[in-house]
Structure formats: structure tokens, C-alpha cells
């Protein structure tokens, strides 16, 4: 960025430096108090100096609303970026990202997140802690599964998952009541019935976490390290209504097919807290093929109509 930029244009609100071959954006950014939109797509950003140090303390951290860094060379989300607390829209499409940092949850004003066209293999459950997220694009990546916690994104209107490596979806996806768009094409979604019961015994941490949650053991942030406070907030409820239990990472996984009014069959993965827990609508966890399929129909009837309109085959 040219030296003196902030002196000549102190009131700058929108800066578009796309397609200029930039390899780094320096300290000039720190002195632009009114900047709300920064477009820097199709450059050569991605190295360690791409964003200036001290970003978190600059006025930009509060004023910047829109940041477009698509078409650059970022192999990880730069930590400095996560200090932009006022950010509403972030695009890192067409970069070289291999993952999403859990600290993405720091961008608590985020409404629009575009991460399509990277090499992302997994989604951290912390992504679900973005309360205002309306538009999430994860297409053209290498994602193998969606964490069930993603269903906590209550504001989500549009979810783009096409061209990934998904074989099933978590059944909690049906809880996204405001979802209007869902793209799933180009995933190796399981079409035929698969009965797959796997169970990893829970760790001591998980057992302790379950006890704290199910017995409502009171705790305050001062009682525990931050990492454990966060861990406890990621508990998922067992879908068995008679159970009332929770699970963290250890659960039984079972694929059920939900038939949306005869048009689509989406493989939805059910997570249960233990093999003894059966899913809400089947009598036993080891049900026969036809039993499971008809149970699936009952289960889907409420969400089916809504999801049928949403689904883009």
C-alpha cells in the first residue's frame, strides 16, 4: 500500500486493491479510522506479513465490516484477521486453506463467511458459535463430515456444501429452521441403506463433562480453565427423549435415510450417547432395513416439506 495513504485520504471508507499483485498490506491500514470495506482479492497475499501487526488495537478492528481476500495464497487464516471484531462479511474463497481455526468464533458479528475453493478437510464445532451467521459457503473443499453442533447456527439462511467428500449429514441439520438454501451436489452421499454402528468408549474428560452437564453441577468461568469452559459448552443432547443425556466426542453413529416426500433420500447420521440409547422413533437400535426406512419417514415428516423446498439437487 502506498506510503501516506492515510494522510491523503483520512476519511477513506472503501478501499479496493484487488488485482494489484500485493504481497502484503502494511501499517498504512492501521491509520484509516473510517475504513469499512477492504477488497484485496486476486493478489499474492498469504505470507506472514500479509496483514500488519497491531491490527487488533487499530480503529480498523472496530470499523471494518467487509473483507474480501479471495483469490490469494493464504494457507491458514491469519491470526491477525481474527482481531477484526466488527467484521460482518469475510471472504477467503479460492485460497489454500487446509482448515478453519476454532478462534473463528472471535468474529462474533460475522454474517457472511465464504470459504469455498480451498482444501479444508474438517469444520471445527466452534464455527457454530457465530450467532449472526446467515450465509456459509464451504463448497469445493475436502470436507468429510459436518459437526452436529453446526445446527446451533440459528440465523443460517444459506449453506453451501457442494463438491466435498460428505457421505452423510448429521440429523441435526433438520433443526436449521431458517435455512432457505442447501447445496449438496457432488458429494458421495450414501444412497443405499448402511447400517453402521460404531462406538468409541468415552474418555475420562468426556465422562466428567457428561456428569457435570446431566447433574447440572454448577460452575463459573473462574472455576475452570477456559478450554474446559469451552468444551462444556459444546455438549450435544442425545436425541433419545427418554435419555436426557449429553455427549461430546464419543457417541454411537447410525445412518438413517430420511425421505423427503418421495423425492430425495438424504442420509442423516444419528448420534446417540451410547449403544443402549435408541433413536427417538425406533423401538430398538438394531432395527431391520424396512423398519428403519419407515421410521425415517415418520421422523422426516415435519422437516420434510421445508427441506424439500430448500434442497438444490
Amino acid at each position, binding site marked *: 500500500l502506498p506510503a501516506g495513504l492515510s494522510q491523503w485520504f483520512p476519511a477513506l471508507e472503501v478501499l479496493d486493491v484487488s488485482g494489484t499483485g500485493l504481497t502484503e498490506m502494511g501499517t498504512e491500514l492501521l491509520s484509516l479510522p473510517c475504513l469499512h470495506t477492504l477488497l484485496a482479492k486476486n493478489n499474492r497475499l498469504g505470507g506472514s506479513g500479509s496483514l500488519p501487526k497491531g491490527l487488533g488495537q487499530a480503529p480498523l478492528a472496530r470499523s471494518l465490516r467487509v473483507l474480501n481476500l479471495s483469490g490469494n495464497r493464504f494457507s491458514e487464516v491469519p491470526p491477525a484477521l481474527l482481531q477484526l471484531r466488527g467484521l460482518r462479511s469475510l*471472504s477467503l474463497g*479460492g485460497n489454500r486453506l487446509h482448515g478453519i481455526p476454532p478462534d473463528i468464533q472471535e468474529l462474533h458479528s460475522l454474517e457472511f463467511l*465464504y470459504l469455498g475453493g480451498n482444501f479444508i478437510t474438517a469444520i471445527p464445532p466452534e464455527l457454530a458459535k457465530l450467532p449472526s451467521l446467515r450465509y456459509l459457503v464451504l463448497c469445493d473443499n475436502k470436507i468429510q463430515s459436518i459437526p452436529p453442533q453446526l445446527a446451533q447456527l440459528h440465523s443460517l*439462511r444459506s449453506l453451501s456444501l457442494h463438491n466435498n467428500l460428505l457421505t452423510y449429514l448429521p440429523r441435526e441439520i433438520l433443526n436449521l429452521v431458517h435455512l432457505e438454501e442447501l447445496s449438496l451436489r457432488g458429494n458421495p452421499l450414501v444412497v443405499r441403506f448402511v447400517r453402521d454402528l460404531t462406538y468409541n468408549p468415552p474418555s475420562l474428560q468426556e465422562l466428567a463433562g457428561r456428569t457435570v452437564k446431566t447433574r447440572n453441577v454448577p460452575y463459573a468461568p473462574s472455576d475452570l480453565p477456559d478450554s474446559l469452559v469451552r468444551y462444556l459448552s459444546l455438549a450435544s443432547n442425545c436425541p433419545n427423549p427418554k435419555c436426557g443425556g449429553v455427549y461430546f466426542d464419543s457417541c454411537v453413529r447410525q445412518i438413517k435415510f430420511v425421505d423427503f416426500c418421495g423425492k430425495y433420500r438424504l442420509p442423516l447420521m444419528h448420534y446417540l450417547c451410547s449403544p443402549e440409547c435408541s433413536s427417538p422413533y425406533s423401538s430398538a437400535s438394531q432395527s431391520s432395513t424396512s423398519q428403519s426406512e419407515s421410521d425415517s419417514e415418520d421422523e422426516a415428516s415435519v422437516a420434510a416439506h421445508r427441506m424439500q*423446498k430448500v434442497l438444490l439437487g
Partner: protein
Amino acid sequence: MEQPVQTETWKAQSLEELVRILHQIFAEDKVSVEEVQALMESYESNPEEWLQYAKFDQYRYTRNLVDNGNGKFNLMILCWGEGHGSSIHDHTDSHCFMKILQGNLKETLFEWPEKKGNGEMTKKSERVLRENQCAYINDSIGLHRVENISHTEPAVSLHLYSPPFDTCNTFDQRTGHKHKVMMTFYSQFGERTVCVSRECGVPH
């Protein structure tokens, strides 16, 4: 050797002229597909002329009506944000011309699914259409999916449908099952239209 039928070689110098010539062509009883395709392709995209119709939506592509061709055709501009794409769809027995005004669009052609079919639909071919190129499709050629595969550039396309239609079928690629949808306009003649019903399928 038979003399080839003489078709006019038009050159539309502006969007307005394109619309005018289209009205002229469609006033006749017989319309040649090649003639319309050549005309559409001859217009060199000038954003100043169509920017007023190019209204983007954050979540999905938009259809913006430009001209309703005295009932003979619909001319519309579609705006595709990064990653936006359509479902696989048919064209309700109409002719469909699609010209790229900005960016690129990937068109994937599919075979019609078997009547009793319950398997993955067959991909026939795919291509990326560049600026100012014009593609043509109708139901006898097959079905297609159109998508903006760019993660950095939005795309804008100009579509002509004759006769006009407001419903079509969308197809599930994995099973071939079809589903009828209603299509609506995001804007008409440059003015934003409010969508009343939630039943919009919006392929084209």
C-alpha cells in the same frame, strides 16, 4: 448442391438494438435458431447498458426481466454470485439462449433420466462459457445445470426464452427424480419485485 437458406447476419451494436432486432425477428412466423444465436453472440457486452438490470442477491442467483417480447419471448439477465449455481432443469418445450455478459459460467449437460430410473443421472458433457459466447439448449437436446464456479468473480448472463415459461422441472442428480417448480423474477424492467410466495424454485 442445394443452396443454403439465406439467414440474415445481424450485428447488434447495443442492448437496445438487440432487443429491437429480436422483436423484428420474432414478429415473423418462422424463427431460425441459428439466426437468434448469431444475433445474441454479435452483441458485445457493455456493462453500462445492462447495469440497471444486474441486481445481485447474496444467497442465490437472480432473474431480472429485461423485455417480455410482446408475449413471444422473455429476455432476462441472470446474476450469479461466487459459487452460485442452478439445479439440473428442463426448459418446458421452449428454446433457451444463454449469452455471457460478464465472467464465466459452467454448463453441464445431462441425459433425460429413464422413466423408471432410480440411479445417478448421466452427464453428457460440460464446458465453460466465456464472455460474449452464446449457448443454446432445448428439451430434445437434454437437461443442464449452470453454475458460476469462480470463487472470486461474479457472473452475469443474458437469457432468451421462447415461448416464455414460468414453471419447469428440477432434477435430483443422484436419483433422476423430478420436481416441478415455479420461477419468479427478482426484478422486472430494472425494478425490484417482491416475492410473495416461498414456493420459488428459481432455476432459470
